[in-house]
């Protein structure tokens, strides 16, 4: 008997896909934090895509005679160095802009990689249960227990230096979280009546996983991923700080921070601006992710 009222409440609470989008737009207008985060994210994405057009200098262009110029100064050739120059005389602003591209590429690829693995294994684990589940979940445990830096180091050595191995390292160490999340969702989805209905219609396991389960997992996974992008940006910077990350000639926020740390007192701008870029971006991703979640789950909204 309970079901009748159950569904009555559920219709009030459940956000349906189409109407949620409209509601999301309306909500966006009402939420200054979300507007701020969207603006920052747009700026970041634009800098990443158009770095070559926007940045005033080649980020790798050195001039040892113009090193450590403070923000706002004008160099010998009369160019403004809005955010100053670093120890090799490279333009900090240009570095920050180009750094966007690398940091974002690394973070997004790592998240996509981790998400891909996590989604696949999480769905398999949650759908099939049994020994597949046991194996995958033990692997999850091990990955989570394994120190991230050890994994990063080993992968880096195994795969050689370069962006690829960092992406793999960051991605591989993230899969377990996604897999866990996905598995949890799948466990609750696989007994939904519409999944059973599909089974009754003669669908096989693969079809059900691909068509009836995965599409429902993805939205909450994306919300989580948007938060995770921020985590990965910070993790990349940390790896670089420990010398396990992005090579020093690649202008990423992490490398700028890592090399700039020696100048924190003498030339604060070298590390501060990329630091601010990280903080703002990650902050925005977090606010955005929170907001996405609120919109999806109107119980909190």
């Amino acid at each position, binding site marked *: 008997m309970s079901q009748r009222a159950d569904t009555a409440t559920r219709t009030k609470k459940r956000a349906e896909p189409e109407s949620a989008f409209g509601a999301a737009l309306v909500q966006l207008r009402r939420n200054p934090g979300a507007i701020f985060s969207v603006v920052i994210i747009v700026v970041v994405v634009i800098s990443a895509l158009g770095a070559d057009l926007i940045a005033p200098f080649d980020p790798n262009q*050195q001039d040892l005679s113009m*090193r450590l110029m403070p923000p706002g100064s004008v160099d010998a050739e009369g160019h403004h160095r809005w955010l100053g120059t670093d*120890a*090799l005389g490279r333009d900090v602003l240009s570095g920050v802009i180009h750094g966007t591209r690398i940091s974002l590429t690394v973070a997004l690829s790592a998240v996509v990689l981790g998400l891909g693995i996590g989604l696949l294994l999480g769905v398999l684990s949650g759908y099939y249960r049994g020994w597949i589940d046991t194996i995958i979940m033990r692997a999850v445990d091990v990955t989570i227990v394994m120190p991230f830096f050890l994994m990063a180091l080993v992968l880096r050595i195994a795969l050689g230096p370069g962006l690829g191995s960092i992406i793999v390292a960051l991605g591989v160490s993230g899969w377990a979280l996604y897999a866990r999340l996905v598995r949890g969702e799948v466990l609750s989805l696989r007994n939904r009546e519409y999944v059973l209905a599909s089974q009754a219609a003669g669908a096989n396991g693969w079809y059900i996983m691909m068509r009836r389960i995965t599409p429902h997992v993805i939205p909450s996974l994306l919300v989580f991923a948007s938060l995770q992008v921020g985590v990965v940006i910070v993790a990349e910077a940390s790896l670089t700080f420990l*010398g396990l990350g992005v090579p*020093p*000639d690649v202008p990423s926020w992490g490398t700028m921070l890592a090399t700039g740390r020696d*100048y924190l007192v003498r030339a604060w701008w070298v590390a501060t601006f990329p630091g601010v870029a990280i903080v703002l971006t990650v902050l925005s991703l977090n606010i955005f992710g929170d907001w996405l979640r609120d919109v999806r789950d109107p119980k909190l909204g």
Partner: protein
Amino acid sequence: ACSPPGAGTAAQGGDGGDGPFEVTLLANADPPDFDPHTPGADEKANVVMNVFDTLTVLSPDLQETLPSLATEWAAIDDTTWEFTLRDDVDFSNGEHFDAEAVKFSVERIMDPDAEVARIGYSFPTLESAEVIDETTVRIHTNVPDPIFPERAYALDIVPPEYTSSVSESEFAMNPIGTGAYTLADFVPGQQIVLEANPNYWGEKPEVDRLIIKPVPEASTRTAELETGGADIIKNAPVGQIPELEAADGVHVEALAGRRIAYIGMNLLPGGEEALQDKRVRQALNYAVDVQLILDTVMEGYGDRTATVFRPDFTGFDPDLKPYPHDPEKAKELLAEAGYGDGLSLSIQFSEEIFASAGEVINALAAQLAEVGVDATIEVLDHPSYRSVVIDGQEANEVAPLFAWQWGALEPSADSLINGTLETGGVSAYYSNPELDDLTQQARQEMDITKREDLYKQIQALLKEEAPFIFLYQIPDVYGISDRVQFSPRLDQYVIAKDLKRAE
């Protein structure tokens, strides 16, 4: 610098002038152990050099060989050195020092059956030790070794009775020597405390306690020095040197160090084709402006070298000038060699290979780019980098260009050439029979002028052949509290008994 409340570190103990004088030294990490005869000399030096004595010592510039446990020495024949020993020396546990202890130490080092790896490789010429009487010992070498008395600086003397009565690892953790200090306390990760040895045979040192603390992060070491949490830090990040120079209560002491930085080239068969051409190698040397890098990136520290010879090396040729910065010449040579349209090379390094390696390599790469050499930078973590370069000839994973350095302890180029240039050297990616021959001759030449002459020939050959991009002598920069008087040594050791209270 004033002291933070509650810091409670011993560094402040000696401030008053009359209390015990404590000096705090910050290191990167704890040494693995304190056995002077096992590898890891650099990490252990802070303890070993203070706890143990050697037969001879070198002057801070490494030019002069001075008496220590040995009062005098002479070559008896081509392969025998005789040392006369002090008779008034006891180990800190009371065991008496005599010729047997020297023989024991030599045999310990050379023991082929030792449980653990010993540093036999540091004494390539050492054959055996012979006790003549209590205060006389003879060292036999397998080939004539003119510089053995200098090498003896690395030969730490251990007490035979104690050493053989305890296990390897016990000795390694509880070292007993004749030195001015004894190991009073060791808390892994926190501190090593050395205390003045009351029974020391020499002059009583001013520093009562030397405290060595491991602080892995360089910026933190700088901060500790600035806050008074430390008295001496080594190798502050170059970028922070001006900050230290400006800070209150702290001064900077620097020295052109014993380590020579260079860019190695993989010249073995299977290495980069273009580099086989001497003109290309020379062009690379012309292309770089090392002095500019020293003046800027290195904040004015570090001395340009013409080749890999230090000024203190036997036979150093002061007239041999470094390659000048001449991009035009470089382009010309490249064009001659058929690389006028440019050349792509990759350059490998690890951040730890020398100070500011990342920035230096970046700057070098930018300079190479100006003459059309596109140098892709590849950074490895230090351990893997080491394993790539050291003994990596067969695997041949090393990049065409790689940043490397060598720090000979003696004022001789021998170990450097042996390790990095002589055919088959552990990190040699070069093979030149002429060089091998000259090196072999110099090694065995007892006559000093002839030896000097051979080394001059080697230097000329090196400059001409340009198997490296020659860089500079890596500076040893110390940040020092104003309460301590310290003059750096070329060998980078902090010898506590040489430290003085500042007036």
